[in-house]
């Protein structure tokens, strides 16, 4: 049985040193995907072309990683590469072909 039963207790413990310290069932207390850089997984990069974009929001709806950035007026402003893992869905769904998928090597 884990001796750690809630996230408040977890904060004080830090990295578990014995089996009793690991959260029960591998549960993550207070966890969120907010700080997880899924962008590290990317091998191809979507490149957004502002001129062709009509802000139809299809890419925004379909993006699995909340990577399409939008301003307060509902205009697409670009792609957040911290999260974007390069799945290519946005390029597939774009009716204006405003997103091009290019190898990461091009940007090295």
């Amino acid at each position, binding site marked *: *049985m884990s001796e750690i039963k809630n*996230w408040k207790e977890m904060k004080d413990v830090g990295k578990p040193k014995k*089996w009793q310290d*690991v959260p029960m*069932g591998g*549960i993550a*207390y207070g966890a969120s995907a907010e700080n997880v850089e899924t962008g590290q997984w990317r091998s191809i990069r979507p490149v957004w072309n502002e001129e062709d974009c009509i802000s139809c929001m299809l890419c925004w709806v379909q993006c699995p990683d909340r990577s399409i950035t939008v301003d307060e007026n509902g205009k697409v402003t670009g792609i957040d590469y911290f999260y974007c893992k390069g799945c290519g869905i946005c390029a597939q769904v774009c009716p204006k072909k405003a997103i091009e998928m290019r190898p990461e090597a091009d940007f090295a």
Partner: protein
Amino acid sequence: MPRKEITSGNWAFAEAMRQIDPDVVAAYPITPSTDIIMKFAEFVADGKVETNFVTVESEHSAITACVTASAAGARVMTASSANGVALMHEIFPIAGCFRTPIVFGLVNRSVGAPINIHCDHSDSMAQRDYGWIHLYCEDAQEAYDSAIMAVRLSENDDILTPVFVCQDGFITSHGFEPVEYMDDDTVKTFVGERQAVNALLDVDNPVSYGSFAMSEYYFEIKRQQIEAHKKALELYEGIAREFESISGRYYPMIDCYRTEDAEHVIVVMSSASGAVKDVVDEMRDKGHKVGCLRIRMFRPFPVKAVAAALKGKKAVAVLDRCLSIGGTAPLVAEIRSALYGAGETIPVNSCIYGLGGRDFFPQYAEDIFMDLINGINTPEERYIGLLE
């Protein structure tokens, strides 16, 4: 006031479900457990329970819904059998690891092929290593009582482990016999409200389930599950005694029937123990010192209690209603292991019986006892009632 009814194991289990009134039941029917869910669906339709009854497209989905509802903080029950249980296989270790309490009415049926609807223990035994508590019931009364006890066992803060309440398909599930039901209030007071820890719906204390645990911590999380089973062994007695105080019925982890001064003992599980106990009485009348040890709790396995009950016997025979093809059948493997660990080297005969619903007659038990008495003991597996 308690009331008596002539009913079946399935209906008795469903009646326990009505009285428990779980928050969520997600189920997909399969023979011979269908009756449990059919009866419970009637309770839902008649407004006798407040349960959120989720009908799904497969057993895999049923158990998945159960695990997630339990993680959300709900009290959860379901039922299944045989290949339905097999289809749930992938999710059982997740329920065990997530420490999601679930009370599961498992109506034992042989796993196909060949397709066969009748009883053996191949369905539940295939799930023995995945961190669920296993209780095996002798009759309908025990199935009813165990469903209620299992809620407390499963949801105990130091245990938090799902429970299989097993009964023999058709023999117990469809056989009609008298069952004493407690009144609704007594049951409701005994089970109380679930006080969930780490509930997904507790938005003030957010948690994520299903996170990655690689080589650094996987082992440690498994070690915690072992600890939960150790706690279940420790805490079971208290729950069983509290249940006795409301029902007058006491169910120890192992049921020792005239074993104390016995020289020869048959070890068995579930409904066949009724026949064995009858034979014990008959043979005692003829002067043979025989007894029956029924294993009710198979996981966690009560090693110490079993070794103590069999210590000093001349020889024992273990009846498995299940095979481990190419290896040692599950119950006899546990018994031999428990005895070896206690330094006992008495002969242990391994007898396979009842596969696919093959009847177990009292004569078989008598023959098995006579072999023990006559010293016909061999390590090879024996097949009881096989055409040979």
